[in-house]
């Protein structure tokens, strides 16, 4: 019985720890199960010669027990804030990730504790950077989602350190490993929802849209409120970006579609008003739904769309006209009043600056004449080559990941039983590919498009 071997006091505990911390194997075999059974108060005490175990233990070699001590102290009633923060911060720079992954719950408590303590201390920002570093070491690969992700991004949001979140957010999450990261479906939803909010704050709408889409299309048998909130933001962001509500993947759960339809009336009406490109109609809808937008905390985004509709209209004009006077532009995009041409000029100027349109304004004619041009980028510079190469590299990485997954599926028990069953009953093997033997479908240009459009291989 392991119970009998349990240390009776802190001194013994530390002894026990140092004996068993030699190798990873002994840590897993002896230390981990025992530490779990030790009662919490143990972790709060000091040794008999009045030393703090936090000072005694090595932060790297004894990462596992150290996590237990820190977690317990973070939850204690009256911790020594400054000292504890010190300990946590230094621990976060040196911990052994393999040991820590054995107790993801405790590690999360430490991280949360750090945030709480620093906030108590009056400066939440100092937790951000160490956490970011810790998170990068803690995650098995940058593509793994961990239980720390969503709380970290949330902290970034709360302390408005959007940029600090980027090194984490820029890695697309594709890997899920529940045992070593202790995640729940809300981790996935919240991480991507908060991530989208960070990107919205940084005005990277493309990426925000991608994150929100992940939330909405998450596998679901019921609809989560997070998904509904995500859809609200999704509709506004896609208006800003594309002028209409972007499409959702086919595999989006039908319950989600239904709940969204029932609960996001305001956003859908607003979007169809935007799609009509009718400024007056959009303003009316905006007035009508202002309270709802405010309640959902989406008023800022909604206000941006009021601006975006002019830009969208001007963009439309570039498709239709080569030259157009400022007065005509003002008229066509729905600007009103005596100053309309001036405002229109302002919009055009700003859009030229941000390279949304390519145009020149000439004031040699009366009222000012705008000439629209095509995109001057002829794609014949070294920049294009760099871009293309970068893109190809990325695609190859993704493809490799797919091939790896394909092999894993091919080796999985489910696949083998199923294909065996199919063979004996004379049916075709699902997917048509043996385990990883022909990943050619990724390289063929003809199959490429099909591969994107048709998610059947994965769903």
């Amino acid at each position: 019985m392991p119970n009998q071997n349990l240390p009776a006091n802190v001194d013994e505990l530390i002894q026990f720890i140092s004996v068993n911390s030699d190798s990873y194997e002994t840590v897993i075999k002896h230390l981990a199960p025992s530490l779990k059974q030790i009662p919490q108060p143990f972790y709060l005490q000091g040794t008999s010669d009045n030393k703090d175990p936090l000072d005694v233990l090595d932060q790297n070699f004894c990462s596992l027990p150290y996590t237990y001590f820190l977690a317990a102290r973070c939850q204690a009633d009256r911790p020594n804030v400054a000292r504890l923060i010190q300990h946590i911060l230094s621990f976060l720079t040196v911990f052994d990730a393999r040991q820590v992954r054995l107790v993801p719950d405790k590690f999360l408590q430490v991280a949360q504790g750090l945030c709480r303590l620093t906030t108590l201390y009056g400066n939440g920002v100092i937790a951000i950077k160490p956490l970011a570093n810790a998170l990068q070491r803690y995650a098995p690969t940058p593509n793994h989602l961990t239980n720390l992700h969503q709380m970290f991004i949330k902290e970034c949001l709360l302390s408005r350190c959007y940029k600090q979140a980027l090194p984490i957010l820029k890695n697309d999450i594709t890997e899920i490993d529940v045992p070593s990261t202790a995640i729940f479906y809300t981790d996935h939803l919240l991480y991507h929802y908060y991530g989208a909010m960070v990107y919205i704050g940084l005005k990277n709408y493309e990426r925000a849209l991608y994150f929100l889409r992940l939330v909405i299309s998450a596998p679901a048998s019921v609809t989560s409120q997070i998904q509904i909130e995500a859809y609200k933001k999704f509709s506004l962001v896609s208006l800003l970006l594309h002028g209409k509500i972007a499409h959702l993947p086919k595999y989006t759960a039908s319950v989600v579609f239904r709940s969204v339809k029932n609960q996001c009336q305001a956003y859908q009406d607003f979007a169809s008003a935007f799609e009509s490109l009718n400024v007056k109609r959009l303003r009316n809808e905006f007035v009508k739904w202002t309270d709802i937008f405010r309640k959902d905390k989406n008023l800022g985004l909604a206000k941006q769309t009021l601006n975006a509709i002019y830009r969208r209209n001007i963009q439309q004009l570039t498709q239709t006209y080569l030259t157009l006077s400022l007065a005509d532009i003002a008229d066509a995009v729905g600007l009103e009043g005596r100053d309309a041409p001036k405002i229109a000029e302002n919009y055009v100027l700003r859009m030229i600056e941000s390279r949304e349109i390519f145009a020149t304004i000439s004031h040699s004619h009366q009222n000012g004449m705008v000439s629209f041009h095509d995109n001057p980028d002829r794609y014949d510079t070294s920049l294009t080559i760099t871009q293309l190469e970068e893109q190809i590299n990325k695609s190859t990485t993704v493809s490799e990941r797919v091939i790896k997954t394909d092999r894993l599926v091919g080796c999985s028990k489910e696949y083998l039983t199923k294909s065996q069953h199919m063979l004996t009953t004379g049916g075709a093997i699902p997917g048509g590919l043996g385990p990883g033997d022909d990943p050619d479908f990724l390289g063929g240009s003809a199959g490429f498009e099909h591969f994107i459009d048709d998610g059947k291989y994965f769903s």
Partner: protein
Amino acid sequence: MMEEKDNVAKRKRTLDITVEAPNNLDLETYISNYRGHTKVDRLLFIAKRCPILQNDAYRLALQELRDNSLDHNRYISAATKLNEALTVQGFPSFSIDNTWVDSTQKRAKSLLERLEVELKNYKNNLIKESIRMGHNDLGDHYYNCGNLTNALKCYSRTRDYCTTAKHVIEMCLNVIKVSIELGNFSHVHSYVIKAESTPDIQPVVQAKLKVAAALAHLDNNKYKLAARLFLETSFEISHAANNYSEVISPNDIAVYGGLCALASFDRSELKSKVIDNTEFKQFLELEPHIRELIHGFYNSKYSVVLDILDKWKNDYLLDLHLHSHVENLYDNIRKKALVQYFSPFLTVDMNKMAQSFGTNVQNLERELAKLITDNHIQARIDSHKKILCAKQQDQRSGIFYKALKMGDEFEQSTNAMLLRMNLLKSNLVVSTSQK
């Protein structure tokens, strides 16, 4: 989708329009092409819409009802309307033939009773053919009395007793006729298909079915399909012995077919399916202006086209089937003319273009802008110099742009699917269960 909505909205707007005066319509000759219900329907339709022809139309309708039907209810209602109109204009009122009404009422009733008794007897004797005849006669009677829903029921009932292909076709034609009058065109479709699947259809029947299906497509705003069917219709339908004048006249086929074709065909189709179509040429002989219209369009004489369209517009607004489509068809034809006008050029002076289309530059610019936004014309407007310029497509840049975009999309969607797959594998599904 949007366009369809647009079409429906436009149709509603033209539903109750009043036509001041017809351009070329001669009521007597026009209506002599028809017989039966459609004659009355068309007359009453014209009477409702065109004040000038109102009196004559009502009189002709009353005449037809009295001579060739037992529909006393309709007779009375038409007469009342005529009298209302006459009183307004200060003319002496029309005297209703009450003796005819009374006697017809009685006759219709006794006939109905007799037919019902006969049918009952047939049913007792269980002879299929007699039962079918009984239902058919009863249907004919209801039809004569203007009770269309009951007529439809009786005709449909004969279905179970049809023994030969001929019977099936007879049943189908009856149902189609009544359904067209009721405006139930989805019914028309299914029965046309049913009839066409029977073996050995005579060419005349085939032609009738084509026309019926075409009308159904027209009602559904499917102008291209309608045009094709009208154009495939055999000219045999115009022979006195087997005409379809209880539904449509050969002149109508020329007009409907011509307009639908113009509104929906491209140039090569117009040439191969309309101008080189010997069968349809015979129809066009009946309505020379439609022929002129089509040739004008094909030869790019747009002022002629617009002129003819304008001249005949009021007449078409008085047509029972065509009226609600006139605006749509005209719009489409004009759009196509604009597109075709520009197609051979790199740049076009909008002043000249406006002249050929009988409009001013401002309006033309608006029309063109709409066409460009809807992607019908690949061009851009130089609003300063008033020139329309064809869009220079830079294929190379396009490819680069697309390739980069596609790479992005590939990366995103693949990553999303990998994530999804792993989520499913770990069973991280949004559900009501708690941690």
